[in-house]
């Protein structure tokens, strides 16, 4: 029997077991009607699993779920949907080749006779998008739209099915600051309309800004539920990790050495052959971190792919230690002691069906001690893997587990572990802490600083302004494929960057360039 009546949802003693892992261990979660409830916890704590149980995707190995006071038994998402539960997944559930409208109506499509009634469908989409201020292009294909819009599509999907309780699994991980603000606006308007929201995130700032209450999971167990007003970020962090966590990055003044990396008049096109990097020139010194701030989709992804040998360079020059590497392919560049943390961990960073030990040597697999004259030495690999997953605290299944069964954050840690372990002299990190928990963020940031202090040059690309500001020594702002300004991190602020990133030229706020 559910506890109080103003609880729309009450999950009691939920247990879910995967091969080798107890993802949920007698978890309790109660949600009040109309609240925004934050669900936080380390990577692999079991947040996503719990939500998948609530959405009927997994059937729990133990526990009960009460919804609006009644015990419910979910055979599948259909049941959840009918009850008014909607979920926006950590990895979007969108069919790339289909249009926005098609994705939204999929499953209960408006029809006229035999035909699928595109007109009505489009209209309903438009109505919802107007009502909640969720702008989308109904006719665009998913594969052609920004991540932010894809997320709005996911939200409309749930509302289209009359969701009352909306689950958001790390919705902000992939969003730009602007998009995050928009998202929170949406949250508020949803709340006004009486909807209830469960919100998973690793960013405590967001938790403080938007949530009413917070539930903390740690290694599969529910630790505590608190009122947001009564706690500080540090408190929450401690609850999550079980120890004190430094939320602010500690770093000493950089001691830049001579130039290690520079690009001149770089031009790059995207997949649709549109120029997206226009005459960019940059340079990074040894022992410094150059941050690239910019709203996603302004060419930073293509820039990184181009300088890591994954994308064709139309014109321009890339130099490492004064050596021309413009024509180098990915392998040759890696051999120059360049490390690369790619922005899309699932598409680029990992072979999801490989196990940890096979993943942790990707890109270095043909080097000793892993490989000698073309023969792998898996004993060395195993040893090496063991060390790294301990050092970097990669959780979930051990080295024989497939990467696809790791939680999002642990996948990221795996990549970081790999890329940082060949003492790179130049490090390219895009979105290095996307979807990573506070403890790990602390860790990864510390690693990046250490690299810098050991004299490596670092190129940091992040949509996370606070991250760019706190890590970088210098910040280059990219807008529509051009570097609009380069600033000293110490002499600028989010406001100014925000302006530059959105095209409006800097007024005041520290002299630019050196």
């Amino acid at each position, binding site marked *: 029997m559910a506890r109080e009546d103003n609880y729309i949802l009450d999950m009691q003693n939920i247990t879910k077991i995967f091969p080798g892992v107890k993802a949920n261990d007698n978890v309790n979660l109660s949600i009040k009607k109309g609240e925004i409830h934050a669900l936080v916890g380390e990577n692999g704590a079991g947040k996503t699993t719990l939500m998948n149980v609530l959405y009927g995707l997994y059937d729990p190995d133990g526990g009960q779920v009460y919804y609006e006071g009644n015990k419910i038994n979910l055979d599948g998402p259909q049941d959840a949907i009918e009850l008014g539960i909607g979920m926006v997944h950590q990895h979007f559930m969108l069919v790339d080749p289909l249009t926005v409208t098609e994705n939204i109506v999929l499953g209960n499509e408006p029809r006229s006779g035999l035909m699928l009634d595109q007109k009505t469908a489009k209209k309903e989409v438009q109505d919802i998008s107007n009502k909640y201020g969720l702008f989308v292009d109904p006719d665009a294909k998913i594969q052609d739209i920004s991540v932010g819009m894809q997320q709005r599509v996911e939200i409309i999907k749930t509302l289209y099915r009359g969701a009352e309780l909306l689950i958001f699994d790390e919705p902000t991980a992939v969003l730009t600051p602007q998009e995050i603000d928009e998202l929170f606006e949406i949250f508020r308007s949803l709340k006004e309309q009486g909807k209830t929201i469960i919100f998973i995130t690793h960013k405590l700032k967001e938790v403080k800004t938007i949530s009413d209450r917070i539930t903390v999971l740690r290694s599969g167990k529910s630790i505590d539920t608190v009122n947001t007003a009564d706690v500080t970020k540090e408190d929450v962090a401690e609850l999550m990790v079980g120890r004190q966590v430094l939320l602010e990055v500690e770093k000493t003044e950089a001691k830049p050495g001579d130039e290690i990396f520079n690009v001149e008049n770089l031009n790059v096109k995207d997949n649709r052959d549109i120029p997206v990097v226009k005459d960019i020139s940059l340079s990074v010194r040894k022992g410094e971190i150059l941050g690239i701030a910019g709203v996603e989709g302004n060419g930073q992804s293509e820039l990184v792919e181009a300088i890591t040998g994954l994308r064709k360079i139309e014109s321009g020059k890339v130099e490492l230690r004064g050596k021309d590497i413009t024509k180098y392919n*990915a392998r040759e560049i890696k051999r120059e002691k360049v490390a690369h943390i790619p922005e899309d961990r699932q598409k680029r960073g990992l072979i*999801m069906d490989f196990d940890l030990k096979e993943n942790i040597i990707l890109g270095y697999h043909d080097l000793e001690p892993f490989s000698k004259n073309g023969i792998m030495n*898996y004993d060395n690999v195993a040893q090496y893997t063991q060390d790294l997953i301990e050092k970097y605290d990669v959780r979930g299944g051990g080295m024989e587990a497939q990467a696809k069964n790791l939680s999002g954050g642990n996948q990221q840690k795996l990549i970081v572990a790999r890329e940082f372990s060949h003492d790179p002299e130049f490090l390219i990190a895009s979105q290095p802490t996307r979807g990573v928990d506070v403890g790990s963020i602390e860790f990864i940031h510390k690693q990046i600083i250490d690299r810098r202090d050991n004299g490596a040059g670092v190129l940091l690309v992040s949509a996370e302004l606070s991250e760019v500001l706190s890590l970088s020594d210098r910040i280059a702002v990219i807008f529509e494929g051009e570097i609009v300004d380069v600033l000293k991190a110490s002499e600028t602020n989010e406001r100014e960057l925000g302006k530059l990133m959105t095209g409006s030229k800097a007024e005041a706020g520290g002299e630019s360039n050196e």
Partner: protein
Amino acid sequence: MNNYSEKIKSVLTDLGLSLLSIVIALIVGTLFIFLTDKSPLDAYSALYIGAFGNFSAIANTLWRSTPLILTGLAVALPFRAGLFNIGAEGQLLMGGFTAGVVGFYFTSLPAFIHLPFAIIAGMLVGGLWGGLPGFLKAKMDVHEVIATIMLNHIAIALTINYGINIFRDTGRPATPRIMESASMFNFKNIMDYPLLSNLPFAELFAQPAIRLHINFFLALIAAVILWYLLFKTTLGYEMRAVGFNPDGAEYGGINASKGIITAMFISGAVAGLAGVGEVLGTHLSFMQGMDAGYGFTGIAVALIGQTHPIGVILGGILFGALAQGGLEMQFSGIPSEIVMLIQALVIFFVAALQVFKVYLAKRKAKGGVE
């Protein structure tokens, strides 16, 4: 890390399930046998005796499984690299034909040159016939399934229709018989070789009925090499990476085209070896009908063996036994098409029962945690 005992276990479950599924298939098969007023018992004991009843039966089962293991491997390797090779049939024909021609054309080479020459030539041409679709895929985005299907038909025209005619001597639609110097060692002649003749059990082999020749052992070696290549070498690592996630492989500095072309070339060479063996070991000339659809059966062999070289060996032996025992079933009065049906049933059930392996694994894991 009780990693290996784990593996052995999973392999044993595999085998257990395969056996179980074969039994079920045979039970269902009785339905058809009843339609032919024969007794299933006789039929199946014939099947068993034909395949494993005595030494020569077993030897011949292995002999029959040889081309199947090889075509199975030829499908399995590219499969691990994300490619579906339906072209083993054509690669087998090209390889076999080449070996056949080399086998008769050079009349005065010593065996220690002629035989290896014929084998390598056959594997090379088979390899090229497999490498071509690999190249088309890597460089021109031609889907390998179309390319290999097309090349199968082209190979038939080139070898069976055209090739035989230009080299035919008598009325037989076959190339001239190969020279003694190009023929593969056949175990029934073991006594002619002083060295071998005083091996233990040598005399067991010395029966005229035994057709097993060395290509079976070449097939085993090929399987081990491929297993090693796939799971122990850097190239294999790269092939599997490309197979699972080309983008990830590219990021890892792996050259996908290289992986694709090599995988297809190797698999073509292996399929070619299947043809080589049939010509130099079994028929002693390249003749119409010698391909016997091995290329297609190879697909089933590969996947029943879970595209794992060792699995493929077992799969190949299973099909070899079905073929060898199937013939014996005919002697017990079961018409050939019923034999076919029973073979198909075995495939269904072996395939279907693999599924339970997944469930078993899941259950086991659960138990493990509590």
